[in-house]
């Protein structure tokens, strides 16, 4: 989809109605991980758990690979995806570093020195709206 005023911001997918529609089941799967028994069942057999949800194969593969940029391009929203990395015992900073392609240490250091500037180039990590 083109012609949206926010489509040309580098390295950024805006979670709008179109993305929310595509990612509905992916995000609702994430919500199910709010409950401890579901977290345990997911970790015991991820593929089986994912197959209970009417998600696309691409979405399931992205979850299994913990490819957060891919999940976002397929309609995931970071506040929902947070339930996955929380299940893995990981922090927002861990996930953010992963999405930038930086090591967690380099990312943490960037934040300590004032964060990424608007004018800074972004890393060579594929991301965008997937069709």
């Amino acid at each position, binding site marked *: 989809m083109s012609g949206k005023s*926010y489509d040309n911001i580098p390295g950024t997918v805006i979670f*709008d109605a179109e993305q929310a529609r595509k990612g*509905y089941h992916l995000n609702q799967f994430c919500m199910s991980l709010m409950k401890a028994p579901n977290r345990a069942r997911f970790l015991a057999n991820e593929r089986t758990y994912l197959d209970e949800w009417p998600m696309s194969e691409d979405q399931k593969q992205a979850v299994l690979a913990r490819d957060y940029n891919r999940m976002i391009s397929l309609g995931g929203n970071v506040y929902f995806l947070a339930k996955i990395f929380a299940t893995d015992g990981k922090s927002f900073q861990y996930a953010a570093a992963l999405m930038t392609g930086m090591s967690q240490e380099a990312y943490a250091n960037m*934040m300590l020195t004032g964060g*990424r500037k*608007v004018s800074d180039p*972004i890393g060579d*990590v594929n991301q965008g709206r997937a069709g």
Partner: protein
Amino acid sequence: MAHISAGIACSHVPAIGAAWDLGKAGDDYWKPLFEGFEFTKQWEKANKPDVVFLVYNDHATAFSLELIPTFAIGCGESFQPADEGWGARPVPVVEGAPELAAHIAQSVIEDEFDLTIVNKMDVDHGLTVPLSLMFGKVDQWPCKIIPFAVNVVQYPPPSGKRCYHLGKAIARAIKSFPEDLNVQIWGTGGMSHQLQGPRAGLINREWDNEFLDRLIENPEDLSKMPHIEYVREAGSEGVELVMWLIMRGALSAQVELVHRFYHVPASNTAVGHLILKNRD
């Protein structure tokens, strides 16, 4: 009659709650942040509100994609701290102010802002982290709290202008409540941060500080800022800052700046904080 004595702005980062709960507030990393709120904790003791009207956003906790209210007012007796996937924060239950909340809901809806009324919901770090920052570690929150959740997760959130005018309607509602109550209004979220994609880690110190200047001095002009500028300059999650305009809209045109603080970083986020004394 009820009156609004002050407005407070502050960011709400889950890592701040975790640092606080795990006793890391004195660590080198967190100390400068928590020190910025020392003044506020003393100030809140000296200026204790009866009720806080707390504008925040839910982070896929109480509201999934099943239901996405743009503006939701908590009218219940109490609200439980939510389990966001890490277990619930060890903080007191949030006691509501159902009579005032119901009055505000009726008044604001009659004033043409169509709120969603929520009588039962859990409240996440968006609401409980600001409470910890302002009140510290307590067995019971020192006042009643009206949670007011704004959708900033699915785009588009309400416009800055809509938020600013809603703040004015909330102020009219509070001032027409017959009980003599000291009410504070808090706007939370922001400042610049982006949690997603290759551009994660964005911080814009200059833009944030200009936002603070304009919020204090010229909020009506600031309220006209389009979403795209928030997203481009303050990051995809920086758009949460529209919530601060609800708080500011509820205050007088001229306000007295009591306290101002800005710190980078809290995990991925720039933290801003203001105490503004109302002159109405």
